[in-house]
């Protein structure tokens, strides 16, 4: 282990930008689930809504003759590639809820807590990124991973629909709503992964962080549903659920008919309040003194 003859050389390099350094962390986080076979399987399971959408797309394109593609839209807007709800479904439908929750629990909610438990923060923060860059990198990685199914996938489905469309009418019609739809699903994914990552920074262990995230999402949704029955006519109670508030805000951005009817301003306000609360807690828990003890 002597340095003589070992080839140890002094380095001359132009340091990379802050964003490149943060991306190194984000890229690592993005691949974290694929380190094990089970992680890869779970990721694929979480893509079921996207796979369902692709299947519907092939019917719509006429690859299958199950009563013709035109009938899909009559069943539900979610089933028709000609409707924005189709592209929002992988993230925001009732079935999408389970899979997005599973994926955010496995990735975003564990991202910071697992490093804290392994004392990784000490080694990461003595490098060229601070706590802010660290948080951003962790969020970016989990956002990119979850976004494969909720943003990239739907965009790819639209491209497929566009190429399968016989004329320009689909492109002309869809360009009116596609940018807003993509923005909506982008916002929804960013908000949920952001909340989960911030919650992750508060927990001591990854398992605790996962439980905390599920309790916050499922528990708050349940409370919101119960309260909405008690306070009939008071739509704001649905905003008690961060999931519902983010979903309602995204629906407003996309301009689609909301599944749960309550004031969009209340939903946006609730998202901002939840964001402010978790960011305040995350900032406190990500102080260097907290991390290294």
């Amino acid at each position, binding site marked *: *282990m002597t340095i003589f003859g070992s080839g140890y050389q002094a380095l001359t390099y132009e340091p990379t930008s802050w964003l490149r350094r943060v991306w190194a962390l984000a890229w690592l986080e993005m691949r974290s689930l694929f380190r094990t076979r089970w992680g890869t399987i779970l990721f694929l399971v979480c893509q079921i809504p996207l796979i369902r959408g692709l299947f519907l797309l092939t019917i719509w394109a006429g690859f299958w003759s199950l009563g013709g593609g035109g009938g899909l839209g009559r069943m539900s807007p979610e089933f028709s590639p000609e409707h924005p709800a189709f592209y929002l479904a992988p993230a925001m439908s009732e079935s999408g809820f389970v899979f997005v929750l599973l994926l955010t629990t496995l990735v975003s909610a564990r991202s910071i807590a697992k490093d804290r438990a392994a004392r990784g923060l*000490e080694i990461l923060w003595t490098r060229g990124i601070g706590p802010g860059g660290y948080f951003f990198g962790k969020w970016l990685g989990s956002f990119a991973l979850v976004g494969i199914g909720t943003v990239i996938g739907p965009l790819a489905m639209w491209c497929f629909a566009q190429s399968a469309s016989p004329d320009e009418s689909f492109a002309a019609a869809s360009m009116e709503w596609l940018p807003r739809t993509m923005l909506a699903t982008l916002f929804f994914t960013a908000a949920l992964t952001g909340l989960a990552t911030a919650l992750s920074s508060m927990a001591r262990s990854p398992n605790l962080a996962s439980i905390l995230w599920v309790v916050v999402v499922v528990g708050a949704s349940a409370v919101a549903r119960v309260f909405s029955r008690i306070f009939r006519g008071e739509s704001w109670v649905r905003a008690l659920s961060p999931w519902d508030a983010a979903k309602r805000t995204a629906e407003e951005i996309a301009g689609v008919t909301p599944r749960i009817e309550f004031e969009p301003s209340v939903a946006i306000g609730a998202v901002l309040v939840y964001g402010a609360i978790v960011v305040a807690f995350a900032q406190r828990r990500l102080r260097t003194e907290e991390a290294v003890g």
Partner: protein
Amino acid sequence: MIAVSLRDVTIRYGDFVAVENVSADFPAGAVGLLGRNGAGKTSILKALLGLVRPSAGTLEITGVPTGARAVDLRRHVGYMPEKDCFVPGLNGFETVRLAAELSGLPGREASRRAHEVLWLCDLGEQRYREVSGYSAGMRQKVKLATALVHDPQTLFLDEPTNGLDPDGRREMLELVEGLASSLGKSVVLSSHILPDVERVCRDVVVIDRGRVVAAGPVAELTRAAIRVLDLETGPIDGLEEALRGIGALDVTPHPRGGFAVTIPESVPTREVFRAVAGAGGEVRRLVERRRTLAEVFLGAVRAEGASVAAEGGAE
């Protein structure tokens, strides 16, 4: 040239004062930061790295204050923490490459350098194994590789020989020595294993109870106007009192019999013979030697303890 400088630094954790009003200069080269467990060594290193904010004082690394642009400064600083801290799920190569990328090395250069440093640290064959499966010694080596990967000018090594077997320890010390002497790196070696420090470091700073109790070149501290005599006599009652009577600063019994007698340079050796004879015994063996760093350390720590006790008594 001063590599690291502390001026009136105080570090508090709530009400607990870990480091109090410490001023010290760490010259370039290998410098030992000595102290017992809990003396404040790790707190000082963490403050230098910007992980702990001092409640008072200033810290500088190569003349640059640590507080203002801590992230930029870390590009020139390598840190090997005492405790295991790794990003879970990564193998040795990925761990070191991530550290390189986060320090600002471009991707390809980071990979090349990670391989190089892992071979240097004797982990070349094991670099694709997950770090969680490494032995304690291998973890120490991967931490050192992580500290070295971006070729920093200043290295902070916190207990680098912890958990190493004798061969690993020797190799680690050789490497640290080589980094300072051959490559001109400034190395701050925090340790409570005094022979390690004495072997590698030219200078030391001794800390106890959050204060600097001794500092300077090892050669000067061990050569200070104090001598140590290894004395063997027959069993004599009252020998210790007799030796203290001639001005002995310390009389420490050896485990195998006899005493290590610390006396000022001004006390001639014949006084020791007289003291032994006066106590009714005879000298069987007397060897004069330099103080070891351990004796310097213990002397400084005892003096500090006495000073604190006196301060407490006065209050």
